[in-house]
């Protein structure tokens, strides 16, 4: 059976077949999503294209062309038709960037960070505090904001804060790294977990003595960066009107706009991560991961390299935090819970520790699972609940199932199962890192 499939794959992956298959998926996916925007299988078909692009043997230039066509033209246009997809893809991009950052810390440098979401929070709160009315409310009680409060900064400052968020998150990474550098793996995990909780508790309680974070209610509204000027948007709008069926609104343009910002950041993140991987620093990280003592003996500056890993990982999260707070126009401490850290960890583990395509795949898979598959399952369950169906053998009527039972709320269960199964059966992930693959091949010979 296994050889049959690998033969089939080999056959499909030679000659002109790869292009045909990929283009076929692309066209079928695009048309089916266009026709039935609510169908999950249509979306999944379309989402298979990037995966095919990665695995199939196609001329590099054609690959890049198809990829660009997909992400720059097809996805935004389809996204305006059904705004939910753009949201899914935006979340994918956000979490892929987070996973790439965490991958630097865990996958490359081998430091298990369980409080990674703290850096995300640092970025998000940086723009949230300066990009909202919060600075003029410092002395007021949460919930009792005076009516005349003004925004402190103009929304164009967003771009500056994108960089500031990166810097501040990196600084937070270094501050966390300094005291915990001496700890070995498992202690480090608990301490970083603690750090994540500390940041969350601070966000929850820093509404007094000075009202910095507005406490559990969170900060809202947060300003968004201004849309590009009308002479760019206007032609696009007239171009899109026949395809979408109506002139797209500003709100929809905002979604596309944020999609492109996220795309831009993720491109930079991928580039940085790839360049780092085989650089001097990246190899130093690998050495530290494999054997700390040997790494020191080879003259690797341990402290500096570990701090660099923390800072680099944190900076990705900082950038995405700033973007996230502007996209949602709202931040609250609950967004930055331990669950989120583990969610990102799950993405990294699922895709493959240290593997850049792997973690992007992991992030996409977990996001789709979370906000689409589980959601659809919830809908299916509620349909069952309204029907008269009965589970055959145990004779349990679906009607008696509790209304509260909503699979979409059972993320922890899903993350837990993924983590345990991956660790037992495939610790190197679904798309293992090249370096690890090479290591495994050598062992076999």
């Amino acid at each position: 059976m296994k050889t049959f499939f690998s033969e089939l794959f080999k056959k499909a992956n030679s000659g002109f077949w790869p292009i045909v298959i990929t283009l076929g998926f692309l066209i079928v996916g695009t048309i089916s999503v266009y026709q039935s925007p609510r169908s999950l299988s249509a979306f999944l078909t379309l989402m298979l294209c990037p995966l095919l692009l990665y695995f199939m043997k196609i001329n590099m230039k054609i690959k890049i062309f198809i990829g660009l066509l997909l992400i720059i033209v097809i996805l935004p246009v389809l996204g305006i038709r059904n705004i939910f997809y753009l949201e899914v893809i935006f979340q994918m991009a956000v979490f892929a960037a987070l996973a790439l950052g965490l991958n630097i810390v865990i996958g490359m440098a081998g430091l298990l960070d369980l409080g990674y979401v703290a850096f995300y929070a640092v970025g998000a709160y940086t723009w949230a505090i300066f990009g909202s009315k919060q600075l003029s409310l410092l002395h007021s009680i949460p919930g009792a904001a005076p009516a005349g409060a003004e925004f402190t900064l103009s929304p164009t400052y967003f771009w500056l804060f994108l960089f500031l968020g990166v810097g501040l998150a990196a600084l937070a990474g270094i501050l966390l790294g300094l005291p915990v550098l001496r700890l070995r793996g498992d202690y480090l995990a608990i301490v970083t977990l603690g750090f994540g909780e500390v940041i969350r508790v601070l966000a929850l309680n820093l509404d007094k003595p000075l009202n910095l974070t507005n406490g559990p209610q969170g900060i809202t509204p947060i300003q968004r960066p201004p849309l590009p000027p009308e002479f760019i948007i206007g032609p696009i709008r007239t171009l899109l009107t026949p395809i979408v069926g109506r002139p797209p609104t500003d709100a929809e343009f905002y979604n596309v706009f944020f999609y492109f910002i996220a795309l831009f950041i993720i491109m930079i993140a991928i580039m940085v991560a790839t360049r780092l991987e085989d650089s001097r620093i990246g190899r130093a990280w690998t050495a530290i991961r494999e054997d700390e003592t040997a790494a020191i003996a080879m003259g690797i500056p341990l402290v500096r390299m570990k701090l660099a890993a923390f800072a680099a990982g944190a900076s990705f999260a900082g950038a995405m935090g700033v973007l996230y707070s502007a996209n949602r126009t709202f931040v609250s401490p609950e967004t930055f819970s331990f669950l989120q850290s583990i969610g990102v960890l799950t993405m990294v583990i699922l895709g493959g520790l240290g593997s850049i395509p792997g973690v992007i795949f992991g992030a996409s898979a977990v996001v789709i699972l979370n906000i689409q598959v589980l959601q659809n399952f919830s809908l299916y369950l509620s349909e069952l609940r309204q029907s008269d169906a009965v589970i055959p053998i145990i004779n349990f009527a679906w009607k008696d199932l509790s209304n509260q039972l909503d699979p979409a709320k059972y993320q922890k269960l899903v993350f837990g199962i993924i983590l345990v199964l991956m660790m037992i059966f495939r610790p190197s992930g679904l798309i293992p890192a090249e370096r690890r693959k090479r290591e495994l091949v050598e062992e076999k010979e």
Partner: protein
Amino acid sequence: MKQFTSNPFYKFILFPIGQILVFALGASLVLSLFTVLLAYIFRAGITGFDLVERVLLILPQVVINGLTIGFVYSTIALGYTMVYGVLEFINFSHSEIFMVGGIVGVELMAYFDHTGALQTMNQYVIIALAILLGMVISGSLAVTVERVAYRPLRGAPRLVPLISAIGMSFFLQDAVRLILSLTTGEFNVILPNFGTFDEFLVVAVPGIATPLRFQIKSILLVGVTVLMLVGLNYLVNGTKIGKAIRAVAQDRPSASLMGINVNMIISITFLIGGALGGAAGVLFALKATKLDPFVGFFPGLKAFTAAVLGGIGNLTGALLGGLILGLLESFSASYLSTFTNGAFGAEYKDILAFAILILVLILRPSGLLGQTVGQKA
């Protein structure tokens, strides 16, 4: 003298109880003195009320609360420290074992409430049954988790079983929630009201204006944990199984060569740790009165901190660490807002444990009572 110290009564009953007493009294005394000293120092800076007077007013109650929660932490910490001693791995899902114990205990009492037995049976028998059931379920759950999620990973790099344990912890939280909410949709479990546990035993001490008030459930809690600690001490130091556990902890390959069934000993360690965790869960439920599937997280982390504070792998250390942590938490929850004039309050008590953890790991990674083992890679 030597004859007396090798006397089993001394070795297994008198000595451990004495040790517990010394730790509890010593830690409370040191912390109380420290707080009172701080109060005297800052007395002049605070106007409006007398800081020392206010501190002294609630001091006995703070110490009692701290000791009560400290004993719970100690009992959970023993589970962490035993597993760490044997496998050198942080059993992250231990906090969920603890939670399961508590929920099972409360569900049993709720069942008794449902059948009406709660009002007719002796209240102490009910508690004993709940604790026993909690111990059995938690112990077997711990063994199952070890068998399913940790044993296949033995010998893998350090982080691999840890990640598996984190996954297991998350899985258990939501699995329990799923089971609890399957039919009713309600996953909070509430302790039924029965017996005289909420009443206070009032002891008037000559020389102190306000009489000391001991809640019956606090006394019960301390009594049961002390009993279990003494039992554990006997098990580990006085029986053949205990000897085997210590041998496996010291050197697994050699222990295996001596004919010890290492896998079984590891399972037994998980069983004991899990049972202690389950009992602690039931006792915690008595005090908290309301549980949900996520209740284990903070007590678990604090107990882990306690184990590290005392020196991980060291049973006496876990006891001492738990007591100190419980007292520190109680003190900070009660006095932080008094000392900072309301700027920082009890809401910061949860992150206090992390601050302690980081400080201990930086300044003395081997803990208060642990031997210096160096940094193993």
